[in-house]
């Protein structure tokens, strides 16, 4: 990776990009628990197409870190069986766009195994998968399918926005005894992305979220993070969009409160409710397509719980209901212009 690694800011903290933080999370947990296995296409000797598993096979051996055939259904089905045996698999689906062949194993099997077996069998999997666009990946390397999984009972959905969060959340996900979908916003693997694709790329070296403890720590699932406190409007976002929101707020000077959800299911409803009741306005920002996206669920929850505090209609800023286009990627992406316009509108209403 091209990221510049700075000196540790203290004895135990290192600058890491998100790939390194994710790698470190698996390394730390694998060292602690011999039941953890990492599997997926190209994850073994090569260390993954994004290098997230680099060095793990060498360190933990081929029976704990191994390449798999190209069958996502098989990867998840095998992981469910390994979980039934007593292992704790961390399968990688190379791109979230490729997760659909595994849907039956995730939705009908992993997510319901505890329920249907009276707790005799569980599926303690953590399915890692890079998601989201902004890398000219076209329609098959850019999708954000989180809304499919938040609709499924029995599975948790986690999306980090910084290297620090990625490591702490991934460790918590791996240790969780329920299946977790862990979507990694690949646009911010190397650095926070402010939405201005035509400006020079940043790396994680100067961002506070790039300071990552080398050892073990967890960030509990189901806890949001208020990344900026404010009074004028609440912005609910996760993954890449947290950083885009932050840039728009910085550029416009609006006193917005930005809530990074971090976990979509289970959702930190208390933090959301407290924030919206305080600001009276709520904007939801996600990169995924709009219709039936997770934003719809958030909008419904906010109006159910905060209706009498709302001073304006809840606004969604999302990707369009089209496939993710290749050349027109930045017209699709909910960037600073779309967010800025929505912000103006919600403050005027």
């Amino acid at each position, binding site marked *: 990776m091209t990221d510049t690694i700075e000196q540790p800011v203290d004895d135990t903290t290192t600058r890491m990009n998100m790939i390194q933080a994710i790698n470190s999370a698996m390394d730390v947990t694998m060292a602690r628990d011999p039941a953890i296995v990492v599997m997926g296409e190209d994850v073994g000797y090569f260390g993954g197409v994004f290098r997230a598993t680099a060095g793990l096979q060498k360190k933990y051996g081929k029976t704990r870190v191994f390449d798999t055939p190209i069958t996502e*259904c098989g990867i998840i089905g095998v992981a469910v069986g390994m979980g*039934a045996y007593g292992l704790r698999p961390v399968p990688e689906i190379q791109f979230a766009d490729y997760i659909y062949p595994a849907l039956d194993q995730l939705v009908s099997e992993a997510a319901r195994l505890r*329920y249907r077996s009276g707790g005799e069998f569980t599926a303690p999997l953590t399915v890692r998968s890079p998601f989201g666009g902004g890398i000219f990946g076209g329609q098959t390397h850019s999708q954000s399918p989180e809304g499919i999984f938040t609709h499924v009972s029995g599975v948790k959905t986690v999306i980090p926005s910084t290297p620090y969060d990625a490591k702490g959340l991934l460790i918590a996900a791996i240790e969780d005894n329920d299946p977790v979908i862990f979507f990694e916003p690949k646009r911010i693997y190397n650095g926070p992305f402010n939405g201005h694709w035509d400006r020079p790329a940043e790396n994680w070296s100067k961002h506070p979220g790039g300071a990552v403890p080398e050892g073990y720590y967890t960030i509990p699932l*189901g806890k949001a993070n208020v990344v900026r406190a404010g009074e004028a409007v609440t912005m609910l976002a996760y993954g890449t969009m947290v950083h885009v929101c932050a840039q728009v707020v910085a550029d416009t000077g609006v006193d917005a409160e930005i809530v990074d959800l971090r976990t979509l299911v289970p959702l930190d409803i208390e933090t959301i409710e407290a924030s919206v009741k305080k600001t009276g306005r709520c904007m939801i920002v996600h990169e995924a397509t709009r219709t039936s996206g997770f934003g719809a669920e958030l909008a419904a929850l906010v109006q159910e719980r905060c209706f009498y505090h709302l001073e304006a209609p809840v606004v969604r800023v999302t990707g369009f209901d089209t496939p993710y286009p290749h050349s027109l990627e930045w017209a699709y992406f909910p960037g600073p212009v779309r967010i800025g316009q929505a912000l103006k509108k919600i403050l005027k209403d």
Partner: protein
Amino acid sequence: MPEESDVVDALSNLKPLSLHVPEPKFRPGDAVDFADVEVPAAGSVRRPDTLAPAQDFTDLAYTMVRVLDEDGQAVGPWNPQLSPDRLRRMLRDMAMVRAFDERMFRAQRQGKTSFYMKSLGEEAVAIAAAHALDDEDMCFPSYRQQGLLIARGCPLVDMMNQIYSNTGDKLQGKQLPIMYSEKRFGFFSISGNLTTQYPQAVGWAMASASKGDTRIAATWCGEGSTAEGDFHSALTFATVYRAPVIFNVVNNQWAISSFSGFAGAEATTFAARAIGYGIAGLRVDGNDALAVYAATAWAAERARTNAGPTLIEHFTYRAEGHSTSDDPTQYRSAGEPTAWPLGDPIRRLKDHLIALGEWDEDRQAAMDREVAEAVKTAQKEAEKNGILGHGLHQPLDTLFDGVFEEMPWHLREQRQQMIDEETASGRPWARK
């Protein structure tokens, strides 16, 4: 460059295509003749070394391993040479499955439960396999392998409690009847989704191998569901890692109303699916308990010695409907079950024991009475715990248990909503 009109002219000279849509040989009302079903003589198929490379015996995927001949003798290299005691136990287990099926089918018809699936005519497939495997080996069954549980000694009452979704059901009434989960008997939770258990069995077997364990996995699906993508994924994974797993394809000729031709049986055998993967493939007479035992024992030996997976096609016949929800006379000839050339697996094993001088008709009749009585007694016991529809057998809030290890707020809220609704309804079973 040819003119466009030339191309069109050339195309017009081609014969029109036609689409082949398979059709079973017999439909309701047709006279049945299974003369074209090839049944090799018992004992005529060779038995390769369990360590032999799969490509050395691909012919075994196209024939049929049979041990019991027409005179009730066990013959040939696949004869597992079982003790009379073992044979009698297998016979009794098969009789028990049949009696259990009969009773539970009737219970469904009496409105005591919502659903049941019999295994009439296929009892040997699960019973003989269970006898050939170690009790510690892990089974990933489909929905018609109740024989595994019975052979492994699962109390009938526990199975019935599950079927009735009553207070004794440890699955808390959450699963469709017969979708058992019995970890203590090495029996994985049954899914209604087809063949999902195949890659899961491979994963379990890979885990066992990677941990230096000695246990192997076995899994079952029907011939119809070999068409699922999971089947291909599982066989690919299994051959890649030489997983210690046995794949059983129960070819009972019918997938609800679709005959085996809709899974490709017109073109090849299901055992032959193994060949493309480099996996050992065996095709056995599924109504011959000794052939099923021998093939399973062979595959288990192969798996235990790290020589890889085996796919076994059990050629059998589903003598009744798919489940209590379909009427087979609507889609196939009523003459099929009796005309089936491989006979009744229970009668064939009984005849063998009699031929050995180890059994007789009186003892058979006494055994039939004894298993029927055992099932009846278990049923009375189970019905003390309630039957489906007669009241609420589980505390209401168990509905929300087990979605996650710890219940998140949104489920707690929904649980409270349900309790409020039930309290407001004033129904006699409302939670107080």
